[in-house]
């Protein structure tokens, strides 16, 4: 197996732009890796060999012509299958979209293509991004490269797994309640949910419009920053996109200096219910942060315990409406149209057989919460909680520069372990959800393995809106110390995958 697959994105971009290695060689090395290990990992739903090699060849042509290249030209990437890709299947992990080929690119995809990033294919996910384990994909689960019997997190398990199994140095995820950060945490990779509105949502199939945000996944902080800088920025096609300069995340990732910063530990996001090894690694990180010259203080966010309940009203409500369009009339898989049935019957059969149980559960929940007579008690009340959460964050950021917590309460659990217990599954996102509710940026950074199971633990860093650069500064500072301590990247400790 080529050693190209173990290289960082920044390193690969340098090799390609200097002409030392061709982008086609880089793409082929990763396609070979996918062929070798993805049978076991199942990070990808579709691999676009032809398209990947063609866009790599286009980058090589630019190198030859001496054209100016972007910071990530020629670097391969896995794209979560929730982003519309012109000419390439987009299923959202659902049978209802089986066979649909979008006629347009999401804005993020356009930006990636323009930057010469080589899209290897579409990665697996919980159906319509509903889940924390990728077990809810209609096309089968993705396996955690650290232990193939365990989940890679969700909903973006395919994106985190392709990065941590060295199938791609970069991936795009989307994060509605933790779907980038929790998978990053349980696979030992880095993932960032940018400020809401920082990255265009145009072309990203909506789960919960007011919470969804696409973001970068990678194996280190600098690569994550490079990808962030490529996909971020104002988009007139997305009304909720912020029209302001993108924070300089690359400079922040290179700065890595937290001396004199104030870091807050969110009291409500830790302690009881968090695995012992998660807590001990988190406490080590706190000590490390202090040793780097930052001041660490405790911060209380009293509304956070209500966040999960409010989230599971807002998300299903918006989702029940967003997913109404999947009726088999204009696109996707149509079921039951045998010429004898009414349009209502066909729509109904399409939806009943096209959606999985978790999707149906949330559609019913949301439909109920929005119903006349219940709206105020559920949706209306949840919005009030959302306001309180924002106020808690505002108060906290009046005192500190960033907040920290464990990303997830546990390390990766076994496939099937929580599948029949939705509430237990929902609790995985208890620490990440408040960040989405307030539209803030958050990062998950690997901080070691839990001693009891030798599985990765993630640190969550939270910054105020449009201060995404702080995540990278803090993350890079911690990462530098940990790399020195470990003597290399954490993924070097992961077991070799069979077939590799």
């Amino acid at each position, binding site marked *: 197996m080529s050693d190209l697959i173990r290289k960082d994105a920044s390193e690969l971009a340098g090799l390609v732009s200097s002409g030392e290695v061709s982008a086609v060689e880089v793409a082929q090395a990763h396609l070979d890796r996918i062929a070798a290990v993805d049978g076991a990992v199942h990070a990808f739903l579709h691999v676009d060999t032809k398209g990947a090699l063609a866009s790599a060849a286009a980058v090589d042509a630019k190198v030859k012509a001496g054209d100016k290249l972007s910071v990530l030209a020629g670097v391969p990437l896995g794209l979560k299958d929730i982003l519309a890709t012109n000419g390439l299947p*987009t299923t959202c992990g659902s049978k209802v979209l089986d066979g649909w080929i*979008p006629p347009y690119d999401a804005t993020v995809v356009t930006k990636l293509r323009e930057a010469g990033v080589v899209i290897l294919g579409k990665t697996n996910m919980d159906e319509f991004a509903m889940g924390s384990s990728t077990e809810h994909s209609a096309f089968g689960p993705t396996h955690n490269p650290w232990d193939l019997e365990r989940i890679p997190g969700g909903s973006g398990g395919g994106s985190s797994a392709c990065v941590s199994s060295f199938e791609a140095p970069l991936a795009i995820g989307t994060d509605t309640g933790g779907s980038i950060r929790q998978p990053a945490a349980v696979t030992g990779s880095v993932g960032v949910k940018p400020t809401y509105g920082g990255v265009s949502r145009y072309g990203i199939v909506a789960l919960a419009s007011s919470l969804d945000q696409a973001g970068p996944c990678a194996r280190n902080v600098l690569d994550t920053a490079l990808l962030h800088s490529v996909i971020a920025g104002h988009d007139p*096609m997305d*009304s909720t996109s912020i029209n302001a300069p993108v924070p300089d995340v690359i400079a922040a990732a290179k700065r890595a200096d937290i001396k004199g910063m104030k870091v807050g530990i969110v009291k409500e996001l830790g302690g009881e219910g968090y695995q012992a090894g998660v807590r001990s690694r988190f406490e080590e990180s706190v000590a490390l942060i202090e040793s780097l010259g930052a001041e660490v203080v405790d911060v209380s966010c009293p509304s956070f315990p209500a966040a999960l309940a409010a989230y599971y009203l807002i998300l299903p409500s*918006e989702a029940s*409406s967003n997913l109404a369009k999947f009726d088999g009339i*204009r696109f996707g898989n149509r079921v039951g149209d045998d010429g004898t049935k009414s349009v209502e019957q066909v729509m109904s059969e399409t939806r009943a057989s096209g959606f999985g149980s978790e999707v149906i559960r949330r559609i019913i929940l949301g439909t109920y919460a*929005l119903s*006349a007579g219940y709206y105020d008690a559920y949706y209306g009340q949840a919005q009030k909680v959302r306001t309180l959460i924002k106020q808690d964050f505002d108060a906290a950021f009046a005192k500190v520069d960033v907040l920290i917590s464990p990303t997830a309460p546990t390390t990766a659990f076994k496939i099937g372990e929580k599948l029949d217990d939705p509430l237990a599954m929902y609790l995985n996102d208890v620490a990440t959800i408040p960040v989405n509710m307030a539209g803030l940026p958050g990062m998950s950074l690997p901080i070691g393995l839990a001693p009891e199971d030798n599985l990765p633990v993630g640190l969550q860093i939270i910054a105020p809106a449009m201060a995404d650069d702080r995540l990278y500064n803090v993350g890079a500072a911690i990462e530098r110390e940990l790399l020195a301590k470990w003597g290399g990247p954490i993924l070097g400790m992961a077991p070799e995958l069979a077939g590799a």
Partner: protein
Amino acid sequence: MAEATMNYDEAISKFDPVLGLEVHVELGTNTKMFCGCSTVFGAPPNTQVCPVCLGLPGALPTLNKIGVESAIRIGLALNCQIAEWCRFARKNYFYPDMPKNFQTSQYDEPIAFEGYLDVEIDTDEGRKTFRVPIERAHMEEDTGKNSHVGGATGRIHGADYSLVDYNRAGIPLIEIVTKPITGTGKYAPEVAKAYVAALRDILRGLGVSDVKMEQGSLRCDVNLSLRETPESKLGTRSETKNVNSLRSVERAVRYEVTRHAARLAGGESIVQETRHWHEDTGISTSGRPKSDAEDYRYFPEPDLLPIAPSREWVEELRASLPENPAVRRARLVADWGLSEIDMNTVINSGALDLIVEAVDAGVDPAAARKWWTGELSRIANDRGIELEELPVTPAHLKRLEELISAGSLNDKLARQALEGVIAGEGDIDEIVKARGLAVVSDDGPLLAAIDEALAADPAVAETIKSGKLAAAGSVVGAVMKATRGQADAARVRELLFEKLGVSE
């Protein structure tokens, strides 16, 4: 099947009608409400669509600012308050003509609210003003259009298959909803019609819509209920859809009054339902039952930002509003010295704006009115086109009038000159020259023609001399014919009487 009805006068003597009108106006913006697709009517099916208005997964709406501006201007013209902050909301229901299976609309935060429109109608006591209270005007998007193929009725029931055209999906709509309109008594049908007509005039004056009811750019739903007395509480209402001409608005109200009355008098209750209006038979038939419990699960649209029109912008728009058509009408009646009947003729002919333009260009109001409601209306009518489509400009009419008052053209020659304009032969002077149109002002040829006419009919001279001056008409006619209409008829008459030694 037609339901029982009661004679209208009897119905009105027993019950008090309460009206409600919901009007949907398609805005005349170049692009749709939430995407850049064209809104031109009549394009081949599904050619004016994109991921946004097709509701493809991942697509997001962006707001058409002209749509918002039009909504505010309509609100202001209807004396509404303009919201300082409002949002769109999703109206959720499944229907194949709705790409997203929700309509982006407004719910409890309309952009305009609490207005009124005064309308005038003729009553037994003369013209009377009714104030129609307006509850709200809100923005939303239109749906696509289903057509059902096969089957006898063209309805979905019994069709072989259905087709959907999404060209219309996403075209901006403003829905204008009245409060219950009370106190109209027997004039409910006239008030309803006058309201829709006044609304149409306002919208046309604002230039926000082409308000063509037959093309569906203005659609009206008529709500009606009856109650025992004006003091009783409101009765159950029916909602009659697709009432798509002014005449139908009046007829639909009248019909529903007679239908409700028959049911109530027979001890039956009114079903709250949607009804379909049939223009051909003049009746409504039951559609689907509708209850207040129909649940659209409205919630604020998370894909669009709230709208907060600045007060400066609103005031700017208010200041630039055109004159209210009713006020303008009253002003013109006074300025031009018209009777209400004359003004009705002008308005019904659709010539008001054209006459105003001509008058502004210096044409005498009476002359402008004569041309546009007379000869030009006739020509447009013959050709089956709108008056606006005639290539006649205020400058044409001005020059024509100048030539007439100088005596170089008469009425008949002026008509010929206009024909030339319509035939594209150039400006008035060019046509006059090319066609040789000029009143014969030299008496010589006229006297010769008079002699000729008298010779052809020897008895007529005696008849005239005996005092029957009306007989002069046939001589004048003959002279006009001989001079191909280029003679000044009055001068011919003068010369004839001179010659015969009679005086008028």
